[in-house]
């Protein structure tokens, strides 16, 4: 975990509890900050520090960290880089900010990267138990897990996949566009399609793998067509989206809407029409 970090940053991170570490923000010439248990702090060489005493990563450290995260093989992750992130072997997702090079409307590359947002995946066994009990006890149905970014949607989906695999023994197709979902146990009956856009993963996956459920994260407006197609073909979909209100869901095609409230905690569960589940 976090093996790609340059020595100075790696040494600073060693002072924090990795179980509570959700995010690491590495910005060139700005204080190193972490999200520890939901709270942002600055990190110095000896752990938590004030902004003045924090560690200030250099531009070279930022770029070295990114190169290492690419496995020293930028060409192997260029498609991901164009979309603004790279996922390491351990499943850490690294968002990048820099100068985007465009050709017409197509992103050619991102150069002069100055900031990295490292999201550390967590596997919380049993965190989807509430969702399973409330929504899936009587059989499979489609679900949309919703919350603002960083509240554990992926962790809940991962655990849900594991629970469904263990208890129902159904075939699960994980359409893991960002390589984050598969950074943990998804169950013995899960097949993973990584780094493909949802339309391709859904279409090819349904044809090739005949899944009973498709699990995918971070649905965007353009992805709902693929979900609709899967649902009409009799395949259930467990998905997540960066949304907080039922009204903002572009297409109300799911059977249940799970609203998270804080890190991985289920706030409320809505029915097809958005009203609370009894």
């Amino acid at each position: 975990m976090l093996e790609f970090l340059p020595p100075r940053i790696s040494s600073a991170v060693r002072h924090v509890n990795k179980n509570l570490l959700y995010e690491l923000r590495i910005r060139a010439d700005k204080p190193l900050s972490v999200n520890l248990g939901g709270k942002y702090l600055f990190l110095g060489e000896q752990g938590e520090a004030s902004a003045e005493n924090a560690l200030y990563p250099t531009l070279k450290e930022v770029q070295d960290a990114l190169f290492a995260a690419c496995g020293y093989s930028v060409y192997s992750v260029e498609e991901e880089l164009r979309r603004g992130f790279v996922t390491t072997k351990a499943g850490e997702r690294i968002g990048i900010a820099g100068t985007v090079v465009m050709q017409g409307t197509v992103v050619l590359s991102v150069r002069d990267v100055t900031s990295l947002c490292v999201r550390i995946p967590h596997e919380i066994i049993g965190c989807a138990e509430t969702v399973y009990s409330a929504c899936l006890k009587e059989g499979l149905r489609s679900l949309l897990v919703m919350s603002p970014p960083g509240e554990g949607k992926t962790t809940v989906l991962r655990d849900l996949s594991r629970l469904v695999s263990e208890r129902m023994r159904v075939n699960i197709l994980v359409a893991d566009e960002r390589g984050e979902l598969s950074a943990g146990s998804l169950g013995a009956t899960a097949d993973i399609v990584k780094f493909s856009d949802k339309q391709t993963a859904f279409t090819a996956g349904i044809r090739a793998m005949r899944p009973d459920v498709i699990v995918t994260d971070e649905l965007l407006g353009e992805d709902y067509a693929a979900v609709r197609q899967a649902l009409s073909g009799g395949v259930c979909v467990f998905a997540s989206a960066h949304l907080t209100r039922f009204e903002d869901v572009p297409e109300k095609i799911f059977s249940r809407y799970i609203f998270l409230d804080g890190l991985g905690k289920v706030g409320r569960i809505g029915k097809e029409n958005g009203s609370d589940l009894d």
Partner: protein
Amino acid sequence: MTWIKLLIAGLIIALSTLLGYVAAGRFRARGKFFAQMCAFNERFVNELSYGRKPLSEIAADQPSGDFGKLLSEAAASRVPDVRQAYLTKEEKQDVTDYFSLLGRGDSYSQIGFFTGKKTALSEKKAAAEKEAASRSSLYLKLGLLAGLALVILIV
């Protein structure tokens, strides 16, 4: 006593021939180095066009040898320190430059650069292998002749 003399003469000739073989080792190593580098370059260009495996995975399949070791270093963390004594100063610099660009760009730019290296590497490989063959033969013969000369002198 004759058999002891014959045995010693045989040992001297064998030892001097072995010395000749060892002396030609650096040329064989050089030939092998460039052959591996050339083969890797071909494979890498293919990988860039199709599988796009990261360097660590390519390095894991690389046959053992000096080039393989340098590639593993490059895949693990950094531009390797090229110290092979059988390479000239310019060759060391070329190899260092080669590794310093490996993996540091998108497939389009990498294909362009490493395809451009193909011809030069093939020529280097052919020359190194030719030199290795001729030097190996020459050093073996010299070793054998030196052994024979020594035996004649002693006798």
